[in-house]
Every structure is written in structure tokens, then in C-alpha cells.
């Protein structure tokens, strides 16, 4: 409930922080996202490989941020952050899932050759 501390540097979040881990997390996430951008710009992969590559890079960037930058775990200071991230998962599933279903029904109705769009390069 109430949490009043005079010195912000005594806060568990601050005590838990590590400069090296923060820089490493920042560098890793920026690097991974830059690679994803380059992959997108080059148009060299097939559609399916491209989607898989970008998803893996995105997942790694998320992991780098969660582990290195935010140091998420179930300790008292970090519990709420970890739960916040977990609470986003249902929204993630909901939005991606319903979007996927919507496009699955949309393409046959609006695309001349929807299989080519969905499966190009397979």
C-alpha cells in the first residue's frame, strides 16, 4: 500500500539497477531492432522467412529489455513490473489473434489471388 521514502536512491528499483546491464540491454535492443529494420528494407527474404526472422528478432529484443534493462523477477520491488508484462500477454493474443482471423476472412473477399498474398515465396 503506502510507500513513502525520503531518499529515492534507497528504493528497491534503484538498488536493483545495474549500469552495465542497462547499457547492454539498451545496446542489444537497439541493435536487434536495427537488424530487423535492415531485413525489412532489403526485401531479400521470402515472405514466410521474413515474418519468422522479424518475430524472432522482436522476441529477442523483448527478452533483452525484460532481463537486462528492467531486471524483471518476482522480488518485492519488481513484482508489479513482471505482472504488468504478463498482463499484456492476453491483450497480445487477443489483438494478434482477432487480427489474424479478420484477415483470413478478408483476403478471399477482397484479393484477386489471396493465396499468392498469404503464401508468396513459400
Amino acid at each position, binding site marked *: *500500500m*503506502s*510507500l*513513502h521514502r*525520503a*531518499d*529515492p*536512491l534507497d528504493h528497491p528499483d534503484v538498488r536493483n539497477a545495474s549500469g552495465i546491464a542497462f547499457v547492454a540491454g539498451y545496446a542489444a535492443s537497439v541493435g536487434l531492432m536495427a537488424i530487423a*529494420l535492415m531485413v*525489412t*528494407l532489403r*526485401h531479400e527474404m521470402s*515472405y514466410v522467412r*521474413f515474418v519468422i526472422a522479424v518475430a524472432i528478432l522482436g522476441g529477442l529484443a523483448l527478452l533483452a529489455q525484460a532481463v537486462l534493462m528492467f531486471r524483471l523477477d518476482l522480488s518485492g520491488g519488481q513484482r*508489479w513490473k513482471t505482472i*504488468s508484462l504478463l498482463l*499484456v500477454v492476453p*491483450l497480445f493474443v*487477443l*489483438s494478434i489473434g*482477432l*487480427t489474424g*482471423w*479478420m*484477415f483470413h*476472412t*478478408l483476403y478471399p*473477399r*477482397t484479393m484477386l489471388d489471396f493465396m499468392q498474398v498469404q503464401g*508468396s515465396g513459400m
Partner: protein
Amino acid sequence: MLVHLQGAWNPWLGRLTLSQIPYHSPIVLGAFAFALLAAAPIVGLMTYYQKWGYLIREWITTLDHKKIGVMYIIIGLVMLLRGFIDGIMIRTQQLLADGPRSAAHLQAVHGYLPPFHFDQIYSSHGTIMIIFAVTVVLTGFQNIIVPLQIGARDMAFPYLNAVSLWLTAAGAALVMISLFIGDFSHAGWVGIVPLTELPYSPGVGVDYWDWALQLSSLGTTLGALNLITTIIMMRAPGMRWFRMPFFTWATLSTQTIGLTAFPVLGVALALLSCDRYLGTHFYTAGLGGNLMLYTDLFWIWGHPEVYFIILPAWGIMSEVIPTFSEKALFGYTVMVAATLSIAGLSWAVWLHHFFTMGAGPGVNLVFSVSTMLVGIPTGVKVFNWSLTLYRGRLRFETPMLWAIGALFLLLVGGLTGMMLAIPAINYTVHNSVFVVAHFHTMFLVSVFGIFAGLMYWFPKVFGFRLDERSGRRFFTFFSLGTVFVFAAMYTLGLMGMTRRLDYLYNPHWQALLIIQEFGIFLYCVSVFYFCKMIYVSIRDRAKEAHGQDVWRTSRTLEWMTLTPVPFYNFAVIPVVHGRDAWAMRRDSGLTATSPGDYEDINLPNNTIVPAMLGALAFGFGFGMVWRIWWLAGLSLLGIIGLVILRSFADDRGFTLTAATVRRMERNHEDTGIVTDHISPPVAELALFQ
């Protein structure tokens, strides 16, 4: 890597040339003159009374949540006025450009606005009203009231709070400057794809819209993080979850939506920026792009944003109605459950914004049902407010009038929303002004809630009440304006008038268009009474000064502290023993008690860094819009450098001793936010001493 654009570009000014300043347009010149006339007296008075130092020391550098909230509200009201003027221009153009024989003025073939200019005006109207007016004002209320309602001295992250404000201000400034340098997007507030793609919008208008939204959405996301943390971590001892005031619950639900939904907008816009700047094809028709993906992503954010705007207004209504009914909110626990379920459902209804795109009937059915489900908790709320009114000792002072008005509008907006949730009806009225009238009704619920909150909490923050007489006239003319504009608009929608038309082909709509314009005139009269209300209230502030419980029947903790609220909020953090903590104390005769022992209070120092970050963010946005790469790059480096530099500052705030607090409380010294009786130190001043 960067997309090569046709036209002039030079390394120093990018795409910016003298011809981009629309001094040849009489309307823009008029707007410029109006802005000068409005700003001149303010600047003159500030200079005459030598208040620039006060402005910087007490406001620009402040980390006080109340002052930040007030600045949010001022920005929001200024943008509300700008959006309202856009609304007048839209309605007037449609009235004048009705039928082939309609007259032509200025540079238009029909009416007085050329189509490209008209398109910019409806785009800026929507963007401003939703993102920079209603959202911003409501964020201001949440900033001011939530820490007071939970018995905290400030937000969890006061510095981050100021950063959020200045990022929002940077976004608003980008929208405003687009009026005088370049032009604004013509692709609607939703950014219709592929119209926002470079081949169809090669100018800077879409970029202004894009970066303004990016900056403000970043500010809103950080603000959401701050408010959620504040509510979870900063509650006073004894304030359990189900003892929290209802407005705080509404804020928690709202900001959870904000924290989860705004990043989606950020992603949607970032991908659009990649298309426009780097030549990717996320939303193009070819090379693997999918222009329908933008619509999907935009509304994944867009519909939760609707509840982001509505829920705080319902929170305000839930504070105002019990106060002026002189009884507790009916069904508190059910109201909390209803609010949380609306927040959850807000994530599962977005596709009803594009039923007509062509998805299968199963998909439309699911989203139709989920949209209708929202009606259940909303209906619960309406019944609970009604049952709070039932057998209450009702007092129709101005906050209550606005709250009742909002309740009525919610019925109209909610029922038309249920109609639109049915795909068959949606197909019939899609893109008609019936839809426009529906969502304006819902946004007006928020606006009515905002004015209820303004009248209700203004005396708590500033120490004096707003003038009741002109306040009632403001309410009357605003409500009448709403009836005339939107009753006519619903009818026009059912008659087949589509939205965003700069020229109307059907002369038979003329009578209803005149009724709409008359409603706009009534709105203008209401603006006059709003200004009069502010003027009279400031003039008579000594007469209207009040004690801590201005309305005498308030129920929540913010009414416990002094009026105006001291900069430290509470001399001693209160201990809460039940729901409606202030009403409990009043009923037990404990309102006049003062603490036996005072304690030292630690507060943050003021700092100029957040305002500098806002200025640099504006520089970055402006540089990106005009492709002035050195400006954008230097601004970005400046932001990163300042953030790193600030992280090394060993700033532990300042301490107000118990003896000082005791003296101020017992002598009733004015420690409200408009006095500089005791100023928090500015951290950076130490560097120059």
C-alpha cells in the same frame, strides 16, 4: 536509404522555403492576426508586471502535480478553442457550399474554402479535439485530483510527470505551427491509408500530423505509467482498494487502457514513418504491404482511446452526482466492476469501426456482440447514477447541471452506438454524418464531464468558486447549441449526407444546415459566457473564497486539506478508516481537528530539464517534418545527453521542516499554487551560484 523527394531541399533548411509560409491565404493571415491579438495582451501584461521570472521559476520548471495538471488543462482549453474554430469553419463551409448555385468566396469554387484547405481543417479538427483537447484536459484533472484523493504528496515520479507534460506540449505546438508554416494533413484525423503514403501526400502535412501524434502519445504513455504507479504505491495508510474514491478507480482503468493501447498507435505511426522516410512498404498495395493493416492497427488503439476519454468523465460524474445528491454513490462495488469490465471490453470491439471493410460475417458477428456487451456495464452505470439521484437532496448547482447533461447525452450516444453495433445498420449509415453525430455525442459526454469537473474542483485548486450566474448561462447556451447542431446532424445522416464533404450536392438539406449553423452560433454565445465566468470569478475572488469543503457535502479525501491546496498537499498524511473518508469525518464531527505533531516534508526541487526535453522534442519533430536532418539529429542527441546527464544528478529535493509546516497551517498562510510565498528551489540554480 532515405526516400528521394522531388522539389527543393537544402542542407540547412531542408524542404523549408519562403513559399511554404501561406501568407497569400487570407484565412491563414486572419488566423495569424487573431493569434497575435490573443497573445499580445498576455505578453504585455507579463512584461509590465515583470512576471516572466515567476512564470519560469514557479510554472515552467515545476514538478508539482497540481501545477502540471493546471498547465495540461490550459493547453487543452486553448486547443479546444482552436478545434472549435475549425468546427465553425467546417459547418459554415457546408452551409455555404450547398447546391450547384451556391455562392463562391475567396479562392473557392463553392463556399469559401478550397477542397484541400477544407480537408486540412476537418483533419486538424478531429486530431486536436480528440488528442490535444479532451485527452489533455482529462489528463490534467487526473494529475491534480488523484494524488489528493489517495492522500499522497505528489505523483510517484514527479520528474517523469513534467516530461510527459512537455512532450504533450511539443506535440500541440507542432499542430499549431503547421497553421503558419507549411500545411496540415488532409487525410483525416485517422490518417486514411493510402492517402497518407508519400505518393498521395508528398507535402509536409501528414508528417506534422504523424510527429505531433507520436510525441503526444509518448507523453500519454509515460503519464499512464506514472498514474498507475501512483495509485498502486502511494495510497495513504488505510486506503484499501475498495476505499478508493471512484474517480481514482476510473483513472486506474483509464490509464491501464492508455499504457496498453498507446504503444500500438506508436507502432502504427512508426511503420507509416518508415514508409514515408525509408521507403518501406508496410501500408502500400505492393511489395508485401497491406494498407488494411494500418486501419486495423489504428483502431486497435482507437477504440480503447474512446474509453480513455470517456471513463475519466464518468469518474467525474460519479464524484459530482453524490455530492449534489447529498448521499453516497449507489452500488460502488458494482460501479468499480463495471468500469474495469468496460476497460477490458474496450480491447475487443475495435473492428466495429470497419465493419464494411469486407471481413466475413463471423468476424462481424463477434465484434457486433462484443460491442453490444459494452452496453451492459454502461447501463449498470446509468442505473446507479439514477439511483444515486433517487431520493437524494438534489442541488442543481453548475457542476450538477453539467453532470446531468452528460447523463442525458450518454443515453443518446449509447443508444445510437447500439444501433451502429448492428452490422446491417452500420452498412446503411457507414461514413454518413449519422456516425459523426454519434461519436460527437459520446465525446460531448466527456466535454460535459470536463466542465462538471472544472466547476467542481476549480475552487479546491484556486481557492474561490466560479461565478454561478454566468456559469449557468454558459451551460444553457452550450446545451442548446448541442441540441441544435446534433439533432440536425443525426437527421442529415439518416437522409444520406456523407461525411467530410466540402461541397453538398443536395439543396434540400439547406434547412437542417441552417439549424446546425444556428447551433454553432449558440456555442459561440456559450464561449462568451465561459470567458465572462472566468473574468467575473477572478474579479470577485475575494467574495467567492471558501474553506476546505467548498460544497459542504463533498465526500472524498481531496476536500480534507486546505483550500487552496498547499503545495505539500497534506500537512500530515491522513489515515483512512473507510470509504468516502471526508464524509465519514464530517459525519463524525472531526472536520476541525488538526494534527498534534507535524513532520518534516520532503519535496522535489523544480528543474528546467523537462521543459528543455520538450523543446528538444519539438525541434526533433520540426526537423523530421521538414527533413532538416541536422536539427533533428542535434535535438535527438540533446535529448539523449540531457537524460543521461540528469541521471547523474544527486538531487534529493528539499525539506520543509515540521516547524515551518506548523506555522503555515496555524497561521493559515496562503500556500496555494498561484502564490510564490514559498518557492521550491530550482535544482539548476545551484550550478550558477
